[in-house]
């Protein structure tokens, strides 16, 4: 959003985004901070408390010292201090550490609370050599004035290294190998994955003979040793741990603390919408060991590219797909046709094992929208000299996907660029997790949580805490038994890539009867804003036992409906061609025998609308007609033109 963006400073410190409840910013007023330099937005609210009493405030004093003031990069510096008021400790007060390198704009680092004696403590690390200035501020309270400490300058220096090397044997025949081994240490600690060069010192200038890297490295897909594994490990550890906080032991197990775990990562192109989010473009495989990545590999897959990772596999349904298209087998990258991720993922797990011999413990899928949202946090990346930002990443991924072919070569092809972007993004994500402030970590955490809730990140197996929304859970299992539900699942097959240019509207009118039955009239409308036709297989999943009565359509071409019964649902499927810049629709009418429940004082009707993974949003029009003579007690999410980016729950209670 314009005006709600943060800026990355040259030194890598992020000026934090403004708080969502900062009405002063929304009103566009200037940021005033009378008692000091301008404070980064994330720190507002602590420096300008509102509603102070008119009685005089007690002056406070804050002291702070850093120990040691000079430290090696990557090692901790502790800042301790005390907050007092006229010599008396101030307990349970918020104190905030700011980076004051730029005196005109302090940058929030971390916040702490004073203890009973007024003492507080922060711990800092930095990975880049340099000098940094910090201050600690107290925001004050209703009784105490704000105060600020004297500036502290902390210097981070690189750790001095020592290298040892021995040759064996020292005398060797011509043409035979001599092994030269050694150790690189920094302040006594081995340094892993560092480049070391063997030089011929016959000439004092030294001539490079060979270069290698110290061990304890992770071998990446391209065979190069890299720090990437460690950074990726942190990223995935954070994703997995943050996403699986409960149950704790399950989360620990998933992160590989109780034995290595291997996961298959799927990047889905949601421009070509599929049942579980989008066309599968890239597969990744990583193994987690004690919360760190032991191996990582990305590979481009496409419908027309045959490889060990992308064989032809048989489809076991759903019936409405296989019968409609007459397709019984497809490329593995095209096989996500099940109606939900929880049904698709186990088959993917099995098919991948049959193709590669590689067992995976779980599957993580994310779409381009997820990549865009993550880049909103990580910032731009540069790949092959091209700058990728959150504003263009989706379109660039589409482009690279479009030009990727089975035979392309060189470093500039779409396959290479696709996997390079993912690798770079993963590294940046890991770096951010490692180096960022608590607030930035939480921002990323909340971003991942929101992405899961909206079906842009899917994880199997479902751990039962965060991953419980539509797309991640089986449709039949995610709705309370006896309640009404609608899950619209669209599929395009390469000729109708248009998801971002198509607006979906779900219009559901339910007429309730006194015997608990209902007649539902469900209209699905697609407004195609693209300059090409939208060819879509549209499926509406409704409760089992629904009896289909009629279907009507208003499209350029139409085939259907196909009515099939699945495990816990009835599927109503139609294939429609919505011409360029036009609107097409299909209307189903069906009877449900019993969708009303009795409550203590009357009756209630609940409708759960599940958003398809991958799509960004839909419009919901929901109306409920009560039985004759009934009186409404409560209604929720009943109405027109509701723009929804997740699941919706429509609820009505009546007597």
């Amino acid at each position, binding site marked *: *959003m*314009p005006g*709600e*963006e*943060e*800026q*990355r400073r040259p030194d890598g410190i992020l000026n934090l*985004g*403004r*708080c*969502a*409840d900062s009405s002063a910013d929304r009103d566009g007023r200037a940021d005033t901070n009378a008692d000091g330099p301008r404070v980064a937005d994330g720190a507002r609210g602590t420096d300008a408390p509102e509603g102070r009493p008119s009685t005089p405030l007690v002056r406070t004093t804050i002291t702070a010292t850093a120990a040691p003031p000079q430290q090696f990069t990557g090692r901790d510096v502790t800042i301790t201090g005390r907050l007092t008021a006229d010599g008396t400790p101030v307990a349970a007060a918020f104190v905030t550490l700011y980076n004051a390198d730029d005196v005109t704009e302090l940058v929030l680092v971390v916040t702490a609370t004073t203890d009973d004696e007024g003492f507080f403590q922060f711990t800092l690390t930095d990975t880049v050599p340099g000098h940094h200035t910090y201050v600690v501020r107290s925001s004050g309270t209703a009784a105490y004035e704000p105060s600020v400490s004297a500036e502290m300058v902390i210097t981070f220096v690189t750790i001095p290294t020592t290298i040892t090397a021995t040759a064996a044997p020292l005398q060797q025949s011509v043409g035979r190998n001599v092994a030269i081994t050694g150790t690189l240490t920094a302040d006594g600690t081995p340094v892993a994955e560092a480049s070391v060069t063997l030089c011929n010192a016959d000439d004092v200038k030294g001539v490079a003979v060979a270069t290698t890297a110290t061990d304890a490295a992770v071998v990446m897909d391209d065979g190069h040793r890299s720090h990437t594994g460690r950074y990726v490990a942190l990223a995935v550890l954070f994703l997995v*741990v*943050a996403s699986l*906080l409960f149950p*704790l032991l399950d989360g*620990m197990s998933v992160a590989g*603390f*109780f034995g290595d775990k291997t996961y298959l990562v799927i990047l889905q192109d949601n*421009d070509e919408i599929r049942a579980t989010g989008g066309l599968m473009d890239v597969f990744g495989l990583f193994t987690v060991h*004690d919360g760190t990545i032991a191996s990582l590999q990305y590979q481009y897959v496409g419908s027309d590219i045959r490889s060990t990772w992308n064989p032809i596999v048989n489809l076991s349904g759903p019936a409405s797909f296989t019968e409609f298209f007459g397709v019984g087998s497809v490329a593995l990258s095209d096989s996500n046709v099940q109606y939900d991720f929880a049904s698709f993922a186990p088959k993917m797990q099995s098919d991948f094992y049959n193709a590669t011999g590689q067992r995976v413990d779980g599957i993580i899928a994310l779409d381009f929208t997820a990549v865009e949202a993550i*880049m*909103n*946090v*990580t*910032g*731009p990346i540069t790949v*092959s*000299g*091209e*700058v*990728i*930002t*959150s*504003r*263009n990443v989706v*379109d*660039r991924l*589409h*482009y690279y*996907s*479009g*030009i990727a*072919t089975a035979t392309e070569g060189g470093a*500039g092809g779409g396959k290479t660029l696709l996997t390079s972007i993912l690798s770079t993004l993963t590294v940046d994500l890991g770096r951010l997790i490692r180096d960022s402030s*608590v*607030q930035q970590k*939480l*921002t990323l*955490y*909340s*971003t991942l949580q*929101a992405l899961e809730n909206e079906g842009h990140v899917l994880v199997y197996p479902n751990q039962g805490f965060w991953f419980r929304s539509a797309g991640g859970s089986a449709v039949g299992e995610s709705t309370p038994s006896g309640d009404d539900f609608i899950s619209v699942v669209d599929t395009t097959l390469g000729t109708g*890539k*248009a998801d*971002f*240019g198509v607006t979906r509207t779900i219009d559901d009118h339910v007429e309730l009867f006194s015997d608990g039955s209902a007649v539902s009239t469900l209209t699905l409308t697609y407004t195609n804003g*693209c*300059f*090409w036709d939208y060819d879509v297989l549209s499926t509406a999943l409704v409760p089992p036992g629904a009896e289909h009565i009629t279907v009507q359509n208003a499209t350029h071409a139409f085939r259907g409906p196909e009515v099939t019964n699945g495990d816990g649902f009835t599927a109503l499927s139609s294939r429609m061609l919505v011409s360029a810049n036009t609107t097409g629709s299909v209307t189903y009418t069906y009877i449900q025998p019993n969708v009303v429940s009795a409550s203590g004082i009357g009756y209630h009707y609940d409708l759960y609308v599940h958003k398809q993974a991958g799509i960004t949003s839909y419009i919901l029009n929901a109306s409920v007609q009560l039985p004759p003579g009934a009186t409404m007690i409560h209604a929720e999410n009943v109405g027109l033109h509701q723009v929804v980016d997740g699941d919706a729950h429509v609820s009505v209670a009546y007597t």
Partner: protein
Amino acid sequence: MNAKQGAALAIVGSLIVIALAANPNWFLSAPNANNVTYTEPASAVHASLGKTASDGTIALRLNAISDASDPATSSAWVKFSGESHEASGVYNFSLTPPPASRYLVANVTVTSVDHTEIPFSYGYFVLIARDGTAYYANYAACSTGCSAQALKNRALNESFSSDVYVLFSVPSATQATAIAYTGANPPIVMSST
């Protein structure tokens, strides 16, 4: 439970405490780390609107910058996007911008002035806004012959010369002051006036 598992549990526990203690409004305000600027090197080659500039291998001329909603621009985009799709396999690109955004399309004449094949990518184009913010290209379209080289192969042969339409997604109120091509050496900066 060994020490390693204990330490990991402590980490998880800390995350829980932090998450629960944090004000939801505070950490739900996702920042946007994508405001970037383009720092033009002193050696950059400049040209005004309608004038050609070159680094010795590629010559560029900015013909126009217009909103994608402009009928003529839209018409040209639909035509060339279709040709690009047919010729190079790149996706069609709809001209419906995201909320609070607009699409600006730069019409640039690209000519190879080298005697060998030279690398090219529309990803090197950057739109510079009046406030200095840089917006890197989202997509491009051009004629059938152009697409096979410039979009599919990302390289221009000796005789290449074609108009390329480069699309930028920018905030609604954004006005362009220049288009830079960072793939040239030195970079080529073309003013919008």
